[in-house]
């Protein structure tokens, strides 16, 4: 136990001190890593804890982003209020999907396809909603401030970095305590063998719904961050299947169900993607598509040889719990 806290402590200090040594480019990369780490962790709650494979998670990112964005765009109300609307909407959406799925006994691949269908349906739907900008996108008014305007979530890149760091840390801690709590045990029981869990008297329906709701809520915060960091939203981008896949790459590579897996996975993937681009540029191989081929091959290798993700393997080496 002690070892893990030591490592975590060191990591925390490193992350806090990062901006002092990193240039703006690396800061933006780090922010991106944290974004994927956090969102991956949110997805992990549904998958890793309750065993429900969601392949349409971009739905929550998008709805969250548009909710907070629209409120800011049309009414000038800051993200702290918009955050609650975003969470509420996403939780409602998640509950609807969960209800429809679980009541009708849909699981596994069918559930995954259901989530994809909802995401795609919403994507095309948003393309036709003029109030939200339609396919032309929603552009939030950008105000470059050198000071930290926390109320409106506007400021230098440093602010975004620390916010994302805070979110990721909170998510990590939150999940840690959740896993140790009764909810955590129920979830793991459901994940391992739902029928047995039910036989033991666990209300599987209620707990699955709780996992879905929590995951949706956490992901919606991710969406709100996205809206105010990038300041422009397009339905075909934010709801796309590509984004859904992007979100889950981190946890899958890192290790589903583990606490640190999504964070590790996000770091590895982002750095890998960057590294490949640099290596290819250095070699002078400027063929479009070659980077993604390498990327895909690495993915393939990890999935084939390290099926539980990279992190558990490393954790074993370091002799700490995943």
């Amino acid at each position, binding site marked *: 136990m002690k070892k893990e806290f030591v490592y975590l402590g060191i990591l925390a200090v490193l992350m806090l001190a990062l*901006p*002092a040594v990193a240039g703006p*480019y690396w800061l933006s990369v780090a922010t991106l890593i944290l974004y994927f780490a956090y969102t991956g962790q949110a997805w992990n709650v549904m998958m890793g804890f309750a065993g429900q494979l969601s392949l349409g998670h971009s739905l929550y990112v998008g709805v969250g982003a548009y909710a907070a964005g629209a409120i800011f765009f049309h009414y000038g109300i800051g993200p702290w209020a918009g955050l609650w609307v975003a969470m509420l909407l996403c939780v409602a959406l998640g509950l609807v999907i969960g209800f429809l799925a679980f009541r009708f006994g849909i699981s596994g691949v069918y559930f995954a396809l259901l989530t994809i269908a909802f995401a795609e349906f919403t994507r095309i739907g948003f393309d036709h909603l003029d109030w939200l900008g339609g*396919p*032309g996108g929603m552009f939030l008014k*950008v105000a*470059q401030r050198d000071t930290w305007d926390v109320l409106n979530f506007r400021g230098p890149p440093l602010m975004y970095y620390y916010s994302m760091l805070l979110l990721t840390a909170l998510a990590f801690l939150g999940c840690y305590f959740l896993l140790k709590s009764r909810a955590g045990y129920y979830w793991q029981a459901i994940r391992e063998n739902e029928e047995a869990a039910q036989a033991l008297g666990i209300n599987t329906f209620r707990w699955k719904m709780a996992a879905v709701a929590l995951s949706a809520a956490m992901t919606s915060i991710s969406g709100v961050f996205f809206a105010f960091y*990038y300041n422009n939203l397009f339905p075909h981008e934010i709801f796309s299947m590509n984004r859904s896949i992007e979100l889950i790459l981190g946890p899958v590579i890192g290790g589903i169900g583990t606490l640190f897996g999504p964070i590790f996975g996000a770091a590895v993937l982002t750095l890998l993607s960057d590294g490949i681009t640099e290596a290819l540029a250095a070699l002078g191989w*400027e063929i*479009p598509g070659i980077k993604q081929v390498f990327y895909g091959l690495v993915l393939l290798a990890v999935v084939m040889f390290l099926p539980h993700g990279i992190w558990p393997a490393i954790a074993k080496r370091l002799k700490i719990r995943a």
Partner: protein
Amino acid sequence: MNRRNFNRALAASAALAAVPYVRAQSPKLKIGVILPKSGYLSFIGQSCQKGADLAPGVIRDLLGVDIELMNADFESNVDTARTRAERLIQEGANVLVGPFDSGAAAAIAQVAEQRGVPFVINIAAAPQITEQGYKFVFRNFQTAGDIVRNGLALMGELFQATNTVPRTAVFMHVNDTFGQAMAKGIGAFMPRLTQLPFKIVDTISYDPAAKDLTVEVSKAKAANADFLMLVCRLNDAIILRREMVKQRWNPMGIVSPGSPGMYEEQYFKALGKLSEHSISNVPWYNPNAKLTKVVEKAFLKQNPKDKLVFHGLNAGFTFEAILVAADAYKRAKSTDAKTLADAIRQTNITEKMTLGGPIKFNEKGQVEGIGSACVQNLNLTPTVVLPTNAATAKPVFPAPYYKK
């Protein structure tokens, strides 16, 4: 850690980041060229790159200034656009040029503004980009509104020049960022342009990713309009044209008030004779301009098997964006970002290759008065038929395949 220390740390990192700029008082101007070289925009990105690649040579001859291009591919993805921009700035780019896509342009603009590095947009039509009050973002291209206004006006000229009076049009457009902006523009400008003889009898929007446009064309054909007004992209333009033949729909012509697709090389390759007589009213280069001839020669040297005319819009505007950067550098005599930005603001280039007035940025960083041309596909080549001072052939309307 209190606020003061934070600010100090911030200032320290900013100073550290600024060091490269101070050091780079080298004679070469470093221009970061961000284009979509992979992903769904790859064909256009590569087309733009051709315009960039010939720039250093031409500009050295023209202005006596040395520039170095730093190419980056944002993979038709907005996130990547942002990180690539950051990376280029990190590696010492003094100016950014790109990106063709409005979403990416918005993302890069933010980065440029934040880091105080000038960004010259080659092609992007979303009006909002120059409405944000940015001080470092410049656009030498028409906004969607301008494109529509010029496009519709050219239509009027086309009908006058060919003595035709079409009464009805069916309007088809892609349902994406660009198509929607154009549709809005048309909705706004049509009622004002009373000299146009036609009315739009039906509007049909379609998915740019659709592979099958049977339903859309059936609907359009059923509207029984005189001609087809089309805002499209390359792939759907090809599909539409073929579908029109299959459904035996032969209107007076296909006229675009301003969109890519029908003048691109792939359109001709895929459709052969069927590509004839389609018309696009787009920002274009002036075939008779002095600079055009120079650029054309350089283009042929680098691409002996290709013709500039197929890359007119893409290569032309990309080249001009780089020209703007180089010209500013010549006047500023420094690669310092702020000095460059100020110099760009003072730009007044009259000797240019695209149509319209001189390259001069207004206080929003937008160039006004960029012209459009009526480009018709004649003899398997996009040919400027209007305005008459830039034309190399006469317009043909209605098309020979027209059946009443």
